[in-house]
Protein backbone atom coordinates (compact mmCIF):
# COMPACT_ATOMS: atom_id res chain seq x y z
CA UNK A 1 0.00 0.00 0.00
CA UNK A 2 2.74 2.39 1.02
CA UNK A 3 4.91 1.55 -1.98
CA UNK A 4 1.88 1.92 -4.15
CA UNK A 5 1.29 5.42 -2.83
CA UNK A 6 4.92 6.35 -3.24
CA UNK A 7 4.71 5.21 -6.82
CA UNK A 8 1.62 7.32 -7.58
CA UNK A 9 3.35 10.28 -5.99
CA UNK A 10 6.58 9.97 -7.91
CA UNK A 11 5.09 8.77 -11.19
CA UNK A 12 4.49 12.27 -12.64
CA UNK A 13 8.07 13.26 -11.88
CA UNK A 14 9.51 10.13 -13.45
CA UNK A 15 7.39 10.56 -16.56
CA UNK A 16 8.33 14.22 -16.84
CA UNK A 17 12.05 13.48 -16.52
CA UNK A 18 11.89 10.74 -19.16
CA UNK A 19 10.03 13.01 -21.57
CA UNK A 20 12.45 15.87 -20.97
CA UNK A 21 15.53 13.63 -21.25
CA UNK A 22 16.47 14.48 -24.87
CA UNK A 23 16.52 18.17 -23.99
CA UNK A 24 18.64 17.59 -20.88
CA UNK A 25 21.07 15.28 -22.70
CA UNK A 26 21.33 17.58 -25.71
CA UNK A 27 22.33 20.64 -23.74
CA UNK A 28 24.66 18.63 -21.50
CA UNK A 29 26.33 17.28 -24.63
CA UNK A 30 26.90 20.72 -26.10
CA UNK A 31 28.55 22.06 -22.93
CA UNK A 32 30.80 19.02 -22.38
CA UNK A 33 31.82 18.77 -26.04
CA UNK A 34 33.12 22.30 -26.24
CA UNK A 35 35.79 21.43 -23.67
CA UNK A 36 36.71 17.98 -24.99
CA UNK A 37 39.06 16.72 -27.68
CA UNK A 38 36.52 14.07 -28.60
CA UNK A 39 33.41 12.78 -26.95
CA UNK A 40 31.79 9.35 -26.77
CA UNK A 41 28.22 9.86 -25.70
CA UNK A 42 28.70 12.31 -22.84
CA UNK A 43 32.20 11.14 -21.87
CA UNK A 44 35.24 13.17 -22.92
CA UNK A 45 37.90 11.08 -24.62
CA UNK A 46 41.41 11.95 -25.79
CA UNK A 47 43.07 11.21 -29.15
CA UNK A 48 44.05 7.66 -28.24
CA UNK A 49 40.64 6.77 -26.85
CA UNK A 50 41.19 7.02 -23.07
CA UNK A 51 37.99 7.79 -21.21
CA UNK A 52 37.62 10.91 -19.05
CA UNK A 53 40.70 12.47 -20.67
CA UNK A 54 41.31 15.07 -23.26
CA UNK A 55 39.76 18.13 -21.66
CA UNK A 56 40.90 21.11 -23.66
CA UNK A 57 40.25 24.73 -24.58
CA UNK A 58 41.45 24.28 -28.16
CA UNK A 59 37.89 24.21 -29.48
CA UNK A 60 37.62 27.88 -28.64
CA UNK A 61 40.52 29.07 -30.79
CA UNK A 62 38.01 30.21 -33.40
CA UNK A 63 37.57 33.32 -31.24
CA UNK A 64 41.01 34.59 -32.26
CA UNK A 65 41.82 32.78 -35.52
CA UNK A 66 39.98 33.18 -38.79
CA UNK A 67 37.52 30.35 -39.25
CA UNK A 68 38.78 27.73 -41.66
CA UNK A 69 35.41 27.36 -43.31
CA UNK A 70 34.70 30.89 -44.42
CA UNK A 71 38.12 32.49 -44.03
CA UNK A 72 36.72 35.47 -42.15
CA UNK A 73 36.92 36.53 -38.51
CA UNK A 74 34.21 35.27 -36.16
CA UNK A 75 33.85 38.82 -34.88
CA UNK A 76 32.83 40.11 -38.31
CA UNK A 77 30.12 37.43 -38.39
CA UNK A 78 29.09 38.30 -34.84
CA UNK A 79 28.87 41.93 -35.90
CA UNK A 80 26.68 41.00 -38.89
CA UNK A 81 24.42 38.94 -36.65
CA UNK A 82 24.19 41.80 -34.17
CA UNK A 83 23.30 44.30 -36.92
CA UNK A 84 20.47 42.04 -38.07
CA UNK A 85 19.18 41.56 -34.53
CA UNK A 86 19.32 45.28 -33.69
CA UNK A 87 17.92 46.37 -37.05
CA UNK A 88 15.05 43.94 -36.77
CA UNK A 89 14.28 45.01 -33.21
CA UNK A 90 14.28 48.76 -33.90
CA UNK A 91 12.28 48.33 -37.09
CA UNK A 92 9.63 45.99 -35.75
CA UNK A 93 9.11 47.90 -32.51
CA UNK A 94 8.89 51.35 -34.11
CA UNK A 95 6.68 50.36 -37.03
CA UNK A 96 4.40 48.17 -34.88
CA UNK A 97 4.03 50.96 -32.32
CA UNK A 98 2.87 53.35 -35.02
CA UNK A 99 0.44 50.97 -36.67
CA UNK A 100 -0.75 49.52 -33.35
CA UNK A 101 -1.60 53.00 -32.08
CA UNK A 102 -3.55 53.96 -35.18
CA UNK A 103 -5.48 50.69 -35.15
CA UNK A 104 -6.25 50.96 -31.46
CA UNK A 105 -7.11 54.65 -31.17
CA UNK A 106 -8.01 56.25 -34.47
CA UNK A 107 -11.20 55.62 -36.40
CA UNK A 108 -10.62 55.61 -40.12
CA UNK A 109 -12.08 54.00 -43.19
CA UNK A 110 -10.64 50.56 -43.74
CA UNK A 111 -9.73 49.96 -40.11
CA UNK A 112 -11.58 46.68 -39.76
CA UNK A 113 -10.31 45.20 -43.02
CA UNK A 114 -6.80 46.20 -42.05
CA UNK A 115 -7.18 44.47 -38.71
CA UNK A 116 -8.51 41.27 -40.24
CA UNK A 117 -5.66 41.46 -42.71
CA UNK A 118 -3.04 41.61 -39.95
CA UNK A 119 -4.69 38.69 -38.24
CA UNK A 120 -4.75 36.57 -41.39
CA UNK A 121 -1.14 37.49 -42.13
CA UNK A 122 -0.26 36.60 -38.55
CA UNK A 123 -1.29 33.03 -39.18
CA UNK A 124 -0.21 33.05 -42.82
CA UNK A 125 2.75 30.76 -43.52
CA UNK A 126 5.20 33.40 -44.69
CA UNK A 127 7.98 30.90 -45.49
CA UNK A 128 6.01 29.86 -48.55
CA UNK A 129 6.67 33.33 -49.96
CA UNK A 130 10.47 33.10 -49.75
CA UNK A 131 10.82 32.15 -53.40
CA UNK A 132 8.85 35.18 -54.52
CA UNK A 133 10.59 37.47 -52.01
CA UNK A 134 13.82 36.55 -53.78
CA UNK A 135 12.42 38.33 -56.84
CA UNK A 136 11.33 41.38 -54.84
CA UNK A 137 14.82 41.72 -53.34
CA UNK A 138 16.49 41.39 -56.72
CA UNK A 139 14.22 44.16 -57.95
CA UNK A 140 15.02 46.42 -54.97
CA UNK A 141 18.72 45.78 -55.59
CA UNK A 142 18.42 47.61 -58.90
CA UNK A 143 17.23 50.84 -57.29
CA UNK A 144 20.23 53.20 -57.11
CA UNK A 145 21.74 53.81 -53.63
CA UNK A 146 18.79 52.25 -51.76
CA UNK A 147 19.48 48.93 -53.45
CA UNK A 148 23.11 48.39 -52.57
CA UNK A 149 24.80 51.67 -51.80
CA UNK A 150 24.36 52.17 -48.05
CA UNK A 151 27.31 51.79 -45.66
CA UNK A 152 27.28 49.05 -42.96
CA UNK A 153 23.98 47.44 -43.93
CA UNK A 154 24.88 47.45 -47.63
CA UNK A 155 21.46 48.53 -48.86
CA UNK A 156 18.04 46.92 -48.95
CA UNK A 157 18.37 44.65 -51.96
CA UNK A 158 19.40 41.05 -52.54
CA UNK A 159 22.61 39.95 -50.81
CA UNK A 160 22.68 42.83 -48.29
CA UNK A 161 22.20 42.96 -44.52
CA UNK A 162 19.55 45.63 -45.00
CA UNK A 163 17.55 43.40 -47.30
CA UNK A 164 17.58 40.59 -44.76
CA UNK A 165 16.55 43.03 -42.03
CA UNK A 166 13.71 44.42 -44.14
CA UNK A 167 12.30 40.97 -44.95
CA UNK A 168 12.60 39.89 -41.32
CA UNK A 169 10.79 43.03 -40.15
CA UNK A 170 7.98 42.50 -42.63
CA UNK A 171 7.43 38.87 -41.68
CA UNK A 172 7.33 39.72 -37.98
CA UNK A 173 5.14 42.79 -38.41
CA UNK A 174 1.71 41.11 -38.11
CA UNK A 175 2.63 39.72 -34.69
CA UNK A 176 4.12 43.06 -33.61
CA UNK A 177 1.16 45.17 -34.74
CA UNK A 178 -1.32 42.83 -33.11
CA UNK A 179 0.61 42.83 -29.85
CA UNK A 180 1.08 46.61 -29.73
CA UNK A 181 -2.59 47.19 -30.54
CA UNK A 182 -3.50 44.99 -27.58
CA UNK A 183 -1.29 46.99 -25.24
CA UNK A 184 -2.61 50.35 -26.50
CA UNK A 185 -6.18 49.05 -26.01
CA UNK A 186 -5.50 48.82 -22.28
CA UNK A 187 -4.28 52.40 -21.79
CA UNK A 188 -6.82 54.68 -20.12
CA UNK A 189 -8.92 56.75 -22.50
CA UNK A 190 -9.02 59.73 -20.16
CA UNK A 191 -5.30 60.24 -20.34
CA UNK A 192 -5.32 60.48 -24.10
CA UNK A 193 -8.49 62.53 -24.27
CA UNK A 194 -6.98 65.07 -21.86
CA UNK A 195 -3.91 65.39 -24.04
CA UNK A 196 -5.95 65.81 -27.24
CA UNK A 197 -8.28 68.38 -25.70
CA UNK A 198 -5.27 70.33 -24.53
CA UNK A 199 -4.31 70.62 -28.17
CA UNK A 200 -1.62 67.96 -28.38
CA UNK A 201 -1.13 66.61 -31.89
CA UNK A 202 -1.74 62.92 -32.53
CA UNK A 203 1.96 62.39 -33.03
CA UNK A 204 2.95 64.10 -29.77
CA UNK A 205 0.20 62.27 -27.90
CA UNK A 206 1.49 59.03 -29.31
CA UNK A 207 5.14 59.62 -28.51
CA UNK A 208 4.92 61.51 -25.20
CA UNK A 209 1.73 60.19 -23.60
CA UNK A 210 0.91 56.77 -25.03
CA UNK A 211 4.26 55.15 -25.73
CA UNK A 212 5.54 55.55 -22.13
CA UNK A 213 2.38 53.74 -20.95
CA UNK A 214 3.11 50.53 -22.80
CA UNK A 215 6.75 50.05 -21.83
CA UNK A 216 6.21 46.42 -20.72
CA UNK A 217 4.80 45.61 -24.15
CA UNK A 218 7.68 47.35 -25.88
CA UNK A 219 10.16 45.47 -23.69
CA UNK A 220 8.53 42.14 -24.52
CA UNK A 221 8.46 42.80 -28.27
CA UNK A 222 12.06 44.08 -28.24
CA UNK A 223 13.43 41.06 -26.43
CA UNK A 224 11.51 38.68 -28.65
CA UNK A 225 12.59 40.42 -31.87
CA UNK A 226 16.21 40.62 -30.79
CA UNK A 227 16.29 36.89 -30.12
CA UNK A 228 14.58 36.11 -33.42
CA UNK A 229 17.09 38.26 -35.30
CA UNK A 230 20.08 36.84 -33.44
CA UNK A 231 19.13 33.24 -34.12
CA UNK A 232 17.58 33.63 -37.58
CA UNK A 233 18.90 31.24 -40.20
CA UNK A 234 16.64 30.72 -43.16
CA UNK A 235 16.38 34.34 -44.33
CA UNK A 236 20.10 35.20 -44.10
CA UNK A 237 20.91 31.82 -45.63
CA UNK A 238 18.55 32.35 -48.56
CA UNK A 239 19.25 36.00 -49.31
CA UNK A 240 22.91 36.62 -48.45
CA UNK A 241 25.32 34.57 -50.46
CA UNK A 242 28.70 36.19 -49.95
CA UNK A 243 30.88 34.95 -47.11
CA UNK A 244 31.70 38.42 -45.78
CA UNK A 245 28.00 38.82 -44.99
CA UNK A 246 27.51 35.47 -43.31
CA UNK A 247 26.02 35.27 -39.84
CA UNK A 248 26.81 32.92 -36.97
CA UNK A 249 23.96 30.63 -38.03
CA UNK A 250 25.04 30.37 -41.65
CA UNK A 251 28.66 29.80 -40.60
CA UNK A 252 27.63 26.97 -38.32
CA UNK A 253 25.51 25.39 -41.02
CA UNK A 254 28.42 25.55 -43.45
CA UNK A 255 30.80 24.03 -40.90
CA UNK A 256 28.34 21.27 -40.06
CA UNK A 257 27.89 20.20 -43.66
CA UNK A 258 31.63 19.70 -44.10
CA UNK A 259 32.72 18.03 -40.87
CA UNK A 260 32.48 14.54 -39.42
CA UNK A 261 31.45 13.82 -35.81
CA UNK A 262 35.14 13.57 -34.84
CA UNK A 263 35.62 17.32 -34.81
CA UNK A 264 32.30 18.49 -33.54
CA UNK A 265 34.16 20.22 -30.69
CA UNK A 266 34.65 23.48 -32.55
CA UNK A 267 31.14 23.29 -33.97
CA UNK A 268 29.65 22.92 -30.53
CA UNK A 269 31.78 25.81 -29.30
CA UNK A 270 30.50 28.08 -32.07
CA UNK A 271 26.97 26.94 -31.30
CA UNK A 272 27.40 27.64 -27.61
CA UNK A 273 28.98 31.01 -28.43
CA UNK A 274 25.81 31.94 -30.29
CA UNK A 275 23.51 30.39 -27.70
CA UNK A 276 25.05 31.98 -24.57
CA UNK A 277 23.78 35.55 -25.00
CA UNK A 278 20.29 34.17 -25.64
CA UNK A 279 20.34 32.02 -22.50
CA UNK A 280 21.53 34.93 -20.37
CA UNK A 281 18.88 37.16 -21.89
CA UNK A 282 16.28 34.47 -21.34
CA UNK A 283 17.13 34.02 -17.65
CA UNK A 284 16.58 37.69 -16.95
CA UNK A 285 13.59 38.33 -19.13
CA UNK A 286 11.56 35.15 -18.89
CA UNK A 287 8.57 36.95 -17.44
CA UNK A 288 8.28 39.27 -20.44
CA UNK A 289 8.93 36.50 -22.90
CA UNK A 290 6.26 34.17 -21.60
CA UNK A 291 3.91 37.06 -22.17
CA UNK A 292 4.72 37.22 -25.83
CA UNK A 293 4.97 33.52 -26.63
CA UNK A 294 1.34 33.25 -25.63
CA UNK A 295 0.48 36.96 -25.70
CA UNK A 296 0.93 37.24 -29.44
CA UNK A 297 -2.17 35.11 -29.70
CA UNK A 298 -3.84 35.84 -26.41
CA UNK A 299 -6.55 37.98 -27.96
CA UNK A 300 -7.52 35.27 -30.37
CA UNK A 301 -7.77 32.21 -28.17
Amino acid sequence: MKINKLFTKSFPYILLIILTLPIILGYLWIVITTFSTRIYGLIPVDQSGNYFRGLTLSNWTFLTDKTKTLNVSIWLLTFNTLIIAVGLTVGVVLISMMAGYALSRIKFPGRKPFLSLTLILHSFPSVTLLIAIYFVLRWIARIPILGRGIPIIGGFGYNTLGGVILVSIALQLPLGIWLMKGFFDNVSWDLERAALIDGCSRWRTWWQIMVPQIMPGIAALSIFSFMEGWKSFLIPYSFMTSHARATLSTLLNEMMSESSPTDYGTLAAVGLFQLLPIIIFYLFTQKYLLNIFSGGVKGTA
Partner: protein
Amino acid sequence: MGKETEEIRKIKPGRPDWFWFLFPSLLLIVLFFFLPIVITLIISGTNMSSTTGFHAWKWVGLNNFRKIAILPETADHFWLTVKYVAVTLAFFNIGMALVVSIITTHISRGTGFFFRALWLLPRITPTVTYVMMWKFLGANAPYGVFNQLIIQPLGLAPQNWVAASSFLFIVLVNGYIGASFGMIIFTSAIEAIPKDITIASLVDGASMLQRIRYVILPYIKWPLLFVTTYQTLSLMTSFEQIMVLTDGQFNTEVWSLWAYHKALQNYWGNFQWGFGNALAAVLVVVGIILGIIYLRYFKFNELVQDPKIESL
Protein backbone atom coordinates in the same frame (compact mmCIF):
# COMPACT_ATOMS: atom_id res chain seq x y z
CA MET B 1 -19.63 63.37 -23.87
CA GLY B 2 -20.68 64.23 -27.41
CA LYS B 3 -19.71 67.82 -26.84
CA GLU B 4 -16.17 66.97 -25.90
CA THR B 5 -15.77 64.83 -28.96
CA GLU B 6 -16.88 67.75 -31.09
CA GLU B 7 -14.30 69.88 -29.37
CA ILE B 8 -11.60 67.41 -30.28
CA ARG B 9 -12.80 67.43 -33.85
CA LYS B 10 -12.66 71.21 -33.96
CA ILE B 11 -9.14 71.34 -32.62
CA LYS B 12 -7.97 68.58 -34.89
CA PRO B 13 -9.56 68.90 -38.29
CA GLY B 14 -9.56 65.67 -40.23
CA ARG B 15 -5.95 65.45 -41.29
CA PRO B 16 -5.18 61.86 -42.19
CA ASP B 17 -2.69 61.25 -39.40
CA TRP B 18 -3.68 57.63 -39.47
CA PHE B 19 -2.31 57.29 -42.95
CA TRP B 20 1.20 58.23 -41.91
CA PHE B 21 0.98 56.06 -38.82
CA LEU B 22 0.18 53.12 -41.05
CA PHE B 23 2.37 54.00 -44.00
CA PRO B 24 5.54 52.00 -43.08
CA SER B 25 3.48 48.91 -42.24
CA LEU B 26 1.49 49.19 -45.44
CA LEU B 27 4.63 49.56 -47.50
CA LEU B 28 6.25 46.47 -46.00
CA ILE B 29 3.08 44.40 -46.19
CA VAL B 30 2.66 45.30 -49.86
CA LEU B 31 6.34 44.62 -50.64
CA PHE B 32 6.75 41.38 -48.75
CA PHE B 33 3.26 39.86 -48.56
CA PHE B 34 1.02 41.11 -51.39
CA LEU B 35 3.60 41.41 -54.09
CA PRO B 36 5.11 37.98 -53.31
CA ILE B 37 1.67 36.36 -53.34
CA VAL B 38 0.99 37.88 -56.76
CA ILE B 39 4.48 36.99 -58.00
CA THR B 40 4.06 33.42 -56.78
CA LEU B 41 0.82 33.04 -58.71
CA ILE B 42 2.11 34.73 -61.86
CA ILE B 43 5.44 32.92 -62.09
CA SER B 44 3.73 29.62 -61.41
CA GLY B 45 2.15 30.11 -64.83
CA THR B 46 5.51 30.37 -66.61
CA ASN B 47 8.43 28.11 -67.42
CA MET B 48 10.91 30.59 -65.91
CA SER B 49 14.13 28.94 -64.77
CA SER B 50 17.82 29.71 -64.73
CA THR B 51 17.96 28.21 -68.24
CA THR B 52 15.40 30.67 -69.64
CA GLY B 53 16.71 33.57 -67.51
CA PHE B 54 14.49 36.53 -66.67
CA HIS B 55 13.75 37.41 -70.28
CA ALA B 56 13.40 34.34 -72.47
CA TRP B 57 10.63 32.66 -70.46
CA LYS B 58 7.20 31.71 -71.82
CA TRP B 59 3.68 31.41 -70.48
CA VAL B 60 2.74 27.80 -69.96
CA GLY B 61 -0.69 28.28 -68.38
CA LEU B 62 -1.49 25.53 -65.95
CA ASN B 63 1.22 23.22 -67.22
CA ASN B 64 3.25 23.41 -64.02
CA PHE B 65 0.22 22.27 -62.04
CA ARG B 66 -0.43 19.52 -64.54
CA LYS B 67 3.17 18.46 -64.11
CA ILE B 68 2.68 18.36 -60.34
CA ALA B 69 -0.36 16.15 -60.81
CA ILE B 70 1.44 13.75 -63.16
CA LEU B 71 4.86 13.44 -61.50
CA PRO B 72 5.20 10.12 -59.69
CA GLU B 73 7.13 11.68 -56.78
CA THR B 74 4.27 14.08 -55.99
CA ALA B 75 2.38 11.41 -54.09
CA ASP B 76 5.49 10.64 -51.99
CA HIS B 77 5.99 14.28 -51.00
CA PHE B 78 2.30 14.74 -50.37
CA TRP B 79 1.82 11.71 -48.11
CA LEU B 80 5.08 12.36 -46.31
CA THR B 81 3.87 15.88 -45.52
CA VAL B 82 0.48 14.65 -44.33
CA LYS B 83 2.07 11.95 -42.19
CA TYR B 84 4.65 14.35 -40.78
CA VAL B 85 2.08 17.02 -39.88
CA ALA B 86 -0.37 14.53 -38.36
CA VAL B 87 2.18 12.62 -36.30
CA THR B 88 4.03 15.70 -35.01
CA LEU B 89 0.78 17.45 -34.18
CA ALA B 90 -0.80 14.51 -32.40
CA PHE B 91 2.20 13.35 -30.39
CA PHE B 92 3.97 16.61 -29.69
CA ASN B 93 2.28 19.93 -30.45
CA ILE B 94 -0.90 18.67 -28.80
CA GLY B 95 -0.12 15.39 -26.99
CA MET B 96 3.18 16.25 -25.39
CA ALA B 97 2.05 19.84 -24.75
CA LEU B 98 -0.97 18.51 -22.84
CA VAL B 99 1.02 15.99 -20.82
CA VAL B 100 3.72 18.48 -19.86
CA SER B 101 1.27 21.24 -18.98
CA ILE B 102 -0.95 18.94 -16.92
CA ILE B 103 1.98 17.46 -15.00
CA THR B 104 3.73 20.78 -14.39
CA THR B 105 0.56 22.40 -13.09
CA HIS B 106 -0.05 19.57 -10.62
CA ILE B 107 3.37 19.34 -8.99
CA SER B 108 5.11 21.94 -6.84
CA ARG B 109 5.13 25.39 -8.43
CA GLY B 110 8.88 25.80 -8.55
CA THR B 111 9.53 22.39 -10.11
CA GLY B 112 6.78 22.91 -12.65
CA PHE B 113 8.20 26.26 -13.60
CA PHE B 114 11.69 24.79 -13.94
CA PHE B 115 10.55 22.05 -16.31
CA ARG B 116 8.54 24.45 -18.44
CA ALA B 117 11.63 26.65 -18.71
CA LEU B 118 13.59 23.61 -19.93
CA TRP B 119 10.91 22.91 -22.53
CA LEU B 120 11.19 26.47 -23.82
CA LEU B 121 14.93 26.10 -24.49
CA PRO B 122 14.53 24.44 -27.93
CA ARG B 123 12.29 27.32 -29.03
CA ILE B 124 14.87 30.00 -28.22
CA THR B 125 17.96 28.08 -29.32
CA PRO B 126 19.34 29.05 -32.74
CA THR B 127 18.04 26.47 -35.22
CA VAL B 128 21.39 25.27 -36.46
CA THR B 129 22.78 24.77 -32.95
CA TYR B 130 19.62 22.94 -31.94
CA VAL B 131 19.66 20.64 -34.94
CA MET B 132 23.36 19.94 -34.41
CA MET B 133 22.48 18.73 -30.92
CA TRP B 134 20.01 16.22 -32.33
CA LYS B 135 22.44 15.10 -35.00
CA PHE B 136 24.88 14.21 -32.30
CA LEU B 137 22.32 12.61 -30.01
CA GLY B 138 21.56 10.23 -32.88
CA ALA B 139 25.09 9.92 -34.31
CA ASN B 140 26.68 6.54 -34.90
CA ALA B 141 28.81 4.80 -32.27
CA PRO B 142 31.10 5.58 -30.59
CA TYR B 143 29.97 9.22 -30.68
CA GLY B 144 26.20 9.36 -30.46
CA VAL B 145 24.60 9.88 -27.06
CA PHE B 146 21.63 7.57 -27.66
CA ASN B 147 23.90 4.77 -28.84
CA GLN B 148 26.16 5.12 -25.80
CA LEU B 149 23.51 5.51 -23.13
CA ILE B 150 20.56 3.49 -24.37
CA ILE B 151 21.18 1.28 -27.41
CA GLN B 152 24.47 -0.37 -26.47
CA PRO B 153 23.58 -1.07 -22.81
CA LEU B 154 20.48 -2.81 -24.18
CA GLY B 155 22.73 -4.94 -26.38
CA LEU B 156 21.29 -3.65 -29.67
CA ALA B 157 23.27 -2.73 -32.75
CA PRO B 158 24.33 0.92 -32.84
CA GLN B 159 23.80 2.91 -36.02
CA ASN B 160 23.35 6.45 -37.27
CA TRP B 161 19.78 6.98 -36.15
CA VAL B 162 19.24 10.22 -38.07
CA ALA B 163 19.67 8.23 -41.29
CA ALA B 164 18.11 4.99 -40.08
CA SER B 165 14.99 6.51 -38.50
CA SER B 166 14.88 9.76 -40.44
CA PHE B 167 11.12 10.17 -40.12
CA LEU B 168 11.22 9.74 -36.36
CA PHE B 169 13.98 12.32 -36.17
CA ILE B 170 12.24 15.04 -38.17
CA VAL B 171 9.22 14.50 -35.91
CA LEU B 172 11.35 14.65 -32.75
CA VAL B 173 13.33 17.70 -33.82
CA ASN B 174 10.22 19.68 -34.72
CA GLY B 175 8.09 18.22 -31.95
CA TYR B 176 10.41 19.28 -29.16
CA ILE B 177 10.19 22.86 -30.45
CA GLY B 178 6.49 22.73 -31.22
CA ALA B 179 5.35 21.30 -27.90
CA SER B 180 6.25 24.48 -26.00
CA PHE B 181 3.72 26.60 -27.90
CA GLY B 182 0.79 24.48 -26.79
CA MET B 183 2.37 24.01 -23.37
CA ILE B 184 2.31 27.74 -22.62
CA ILE B 185 -1.25 28.19 -23.82
CA PHE B 186 -2.59 25.07 -22.10
CA THR B 187 -0.77 25.92 -18.86
CA SER B 188 -2.39 29.32 -18.56
CA ALA B 189 -5.77 27.80 -19.51
CA ILE B 190 -5.44 25.07 -16.87
CA GLU B 191 -4.37 27.59 -14.24
CA ALA B 192 -7.48 29.63 -15.06
CA ILE B 193 -9.86 26.76 -14.19
CA PRO B 194 -11.86 27.96 -11.14
CA LYS B 195 -10.51 26.45 -7.93
CA ASP B 196 -13.96 25.36 -6.60
CA ILE B 197 -14.46 23.10 -9.61
CA THR B 198 -11.18 21.33 -9.02
CA ILE B 199 -11.98 21.03 -5.31
CA ALA B 200 -15.47 19.73 -6.02
CA SER B 201 -14.05 17.01 -8.24
CA LEU B 202 -11.56 16.10 -5.52
CA VAL B 203 -14.30 15.91 -2.90
CA ASP B 204 -16.30 13.66 -5.20
CA GLY B 205 -13.30 11.36 -5.30
CA ALA B 206 -12.48 11.74 -8.98
CA SER B 207 -9.26 10.08 -10.05
CA MET B 208 -6.64 12.05 -11.96
CA LEU B 209 -7.69 10.48 -15.25
CA GLN B 210 -11.33 11.32 -14.61
CA ARG B 211 -10.37 14.87 -13.76
CA ILE B 212 -8.41 15.21 -16.97
CA ARG B 213 -11.31 13.80 -18.98
CA TYR B 214 -14.23 15.63 -17.35
CA VAL B 215 -12.75 18.81 -15.89
CA ILE B 216 -9.56 19.85 -17.65
CA LEU B 217 -10.25 18.87 -21.25
CA PRO B 218 -13.70 20.50 -21.47
CA TYR B 219 -12.24 23.67 -19.99
CA ILE B 220 -9.45 24.00 -22.52
CA LYS B 221 -11.52 23.10 -25.57
CA TRP B 222 -10.96 26.44 -27.30
CA PRO B 223 -7.23 26.67 -26.68
CA LEU B 224 -6.99 23.09 -27.94
CA LEU B 225 -8.78 23.92 -31.16
CA PHE B 226 -6.74 27.07 -31.58
CA VAL B 227 -3.38 25.33 -31.14
CA THR B 228 -4.46 22.59 -33.54
CA THR B 229 -5.42 24.92 -36.39
CA TYR B 230 -2.51 27.27 -35.87
CA GLN B 231 0.12 24.55 -35.62
CA THR B 232 -1.23 22.56 -38.58
CA LEU B 233 -0.53 25.54 -40.76
CA SER B 234 2.96 26.17 -39.43
CA LEU B 235 3.97 22.49 -39.53
CA MET B 236 2.72 22.18 -43.08
CA THR B 237 4.89 25.01 -44.33
CA SER B 238 8.00 25.16 -42.17
CA PHE B 239 11.04 23.29 -43.39
CA GLU B 240 13.99 25.06 -41.77
CA GLN B 241 14.81 22.31 -39.25
CA ILE B 242 14.38 19.52 -41.79
CA MET B 243 16.62 21.34 -44.23
CA VAL B 244 19.42 21.63 -41.67
CA LEU B 245 18.96 18.08 -40.34
CA THR B 246 18.73 15.99 -43.50
CA ASP B 247 18.29 18.47 -46.35
CA GLY B 248 15.57 16.21 -47.65
CA GLN B 249 17.72 13.06 -47.77
CA PHE B 250 16.45 9.73 -46.43
CA ASN B 251 12.88 10.41 -47.61
CA THR B 252 12.31 13.57 -45.62
CA GLU B 253 11.60 16.00 -48.46
CA VAL B 254 8.31 17.54 -47.31
CA TRP B 255 6.28 19.62 -49.74
CA SER B 256 7.58 23.05 -48.68
CA LEU B 257 11.20 21.88 -48.79
CA TRP B 258 10.57 20.39 -52.22
CA ALA B 259 9.38 23.80 -53.45
CA TYR B 260 12.37 25.56 -51.92
CA HIS B 261 14.83 23.10 -53.42
CA LYS B 262 13.29 23.30 -56.88
CA ALA B 263 13.25 27.08 -56.98
CA LEU B 264 16.24 28.28 -55.00
CA GLN B 265 18.62 25.43 -54.28
CA ASN B 266 19.43 22.24 -56.02
CA TYR B 267 22.42 20.16 -56.89
CA TRP B 268 22.15 20.76 -60.62
CA GLY B 269 22.17 24.54 -60.30
CA ASN B 270 19.09 24.72 -62.48
CA PHE B 271 16.64 26.87 -60.58
CA GLN B 272 13.10 26.09 -61.73
CA TRP B 273 11.37 29.25 -60.57
CA GLY B 274 8.17 28.50 -62.45
CA PHE B 275 7.72 24.97 -61.14
CA GLY B 276 8.93 25.86 -57.62
CA ASN B 277 6.47 28.74 -57.43
CA ALA B 278 3.68 26.42 -58.55
CA LEU B 279 4.53 24.11 -55.65
CA ALA B 280 4.57 27.09 -53.29
CA ALA B 281 1.31 28.40 -54.76
CA VAL B 282 -0.45 25.25 -53.58
CA LEU B 283 0.64 26.04 -50.02
CA VAL B 284 -0.17 29.74 -50.37
CA VAL B 285 -3.74 28.92 -51.40
CA VAL B 286 -4.15 26.43 -48.54
CA GLY B 287 -2.68 29.05 -46.20
CA ILE B 288 -5.13 31.74 -47.28
CA ILE B 289 -8.12 29.40 -46.98
CA LEU B 290 -7.12 28.14 -43.53
CA GLY B 291 -6.35 31.71 -42.46
CA ILE B 292 -9.85 32.84 -43.35
CA ILE B 293 -11.49 29.86 -41.67
CA TYR B 294 -9.38 30.54 -38.61
CA LEU B 295 -10.50 34.17 -38.59
CA ARG B 296 -14.16 33.11 -38.73
CA TYR B 297 -13.76 30.59 -35.96
CA PHE B 298 -12.14 32.74 -33.33
CA LYS B 299 -14.80 35.38 -32.65
CA PHE B 300 -12.92 38.02 -34.51
CA ASN B 301 -15.57 40.73 -34.31
CA GLU B 302 -15.23 41.04 -30.57
CA LEU B 303 -11.63 42.02 -31.04
CA VAL B 304 -12.16 44.86 -33.47
CA GLN B 305 -14.58 47.19 -31.68
CA ASP B 306 -14.41 50.81 -32.79
CA PRO B 307 -11.94 52.87 -30.77
CA LYS B 308 -13.80 54.62 -27.97
CA ILE B 309 -12.07 57.96 -28.27
CA GLU B 310 -14.23 58.86 -31.22
CA SER B 311 -17.40 57.06 -30.29
CA LEU B 312 -17.68 58.33 -26.72
